[in-house]
């Protein structure tokens, strides 16, 4: 029984081993939060599918150290990200900057969604109009007259 509990515990604890561990001191809690925010937004140039917060590559360690240093110097998030982009290129941003070249990237999903809704709306409107029109139109003139007289007789009775 206790073995089973151990197993469960180990499985639960395993994900914690994935994040890289450094010991950095921060002056404020806010700085610590910013450190994690920035380093999870920067892409590691060596291991390209990880951010520098998760990566254990030596270069990721160096870049985390730089982020920590600049936070200590009181630099803004933007300055820190710009520092990295100047050295490693736009590539290091997991969140690309809004430039004419990245417009499509930022706005295409919303535009497509909007376009989809407009398309759907137009389609539904048309169908409704067609339905309303066809509700009576599919009867011939004689049939419509007969329907009318049937309805009137109903009312009389």
């Amino acid at each position, binding site marked *: 029984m206790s073995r089973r509990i151990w197993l469960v515990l180990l499985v639960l604890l395993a994900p914690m081993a994935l994040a890289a561990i450094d010991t950095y001191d921060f002056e404020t809690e806010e700085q610590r939060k910013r450190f994690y925010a920035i380093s999870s937004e920067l892409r590691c*140039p060596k291991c390209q599918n990880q951010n520098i917060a998760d990566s254990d590559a*030596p*270069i990721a360690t160096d870049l985390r150290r730089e982020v920590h240093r600049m936070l200590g110097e009181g630099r803004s998030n933007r300055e820190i990200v710009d520092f990295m982009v100047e050295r490693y*290129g736009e590539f290091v941003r997991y969140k690309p900057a809004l430039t004419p070249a990245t417009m499509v990237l930022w706005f295409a999903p919303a535009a497509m969604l909007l376009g989809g809704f407009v398309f759907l709306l137009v389609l539904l409107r*048309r169908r409704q109009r067609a339905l309303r029109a066809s509700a009576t139109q599919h009867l011939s003139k004689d049939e419509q007259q007969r329907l009318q007289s049937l309805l009137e007789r109903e009312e009389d009775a």
Partner: protein
Amino acid sequence: MRRSWMLIPLVLFVLLLALFMKTLNDKKTQQDLAIDPSALPSALIGKPVPDFALPSLDEPGRIISQDDFKGQVALINVWATWCPTCRAEHSFFNKLAEQGVVIHGVNYKDNSEAARRWLDELGNPYQLNVEDPQGSLGVNLGVYGAPETFLVDTAGVIHYKYIGAVDDRVWNDELGPRYQALLDRAGQEAQP
């Protein structure tokens, strides 16, 4: 008639697919997008070597700065003893140095003792060798591994960066012609 409207998403999808296939198969875009994951374009091309002041690896007491790289067209090779590819390219750099190519070294995140021993054993193609134990110059150069080789002009401006081992093919196809072009330009500027 209305049915044909329903085909629009499908047509768009097929068009996108065609665009992606074309892009994936296009040689030039492959280079631009750096689909080869080991090769990122350097953000520093056209910019000067960043400011630094670090000790020399083989001249005790000497501090090297970015200004020491100025004055000649040169290769700056980022190397380390922990890097097997650096060992592979080392003999080629020896050969280049014999031919008169100016090569400087940045000993990147290394043990200086081991680095000096390596130069004694394998030969020293470097004119200047900067000791960068913390990788601070490396970060400023946008280095993310070793070996990386930069090409700088006489004003210390970076013109090209090659990631990986330099060998005959790389020299003949990529670095050599650019090096020669910079030399020619420097010669023309010096003459009048």
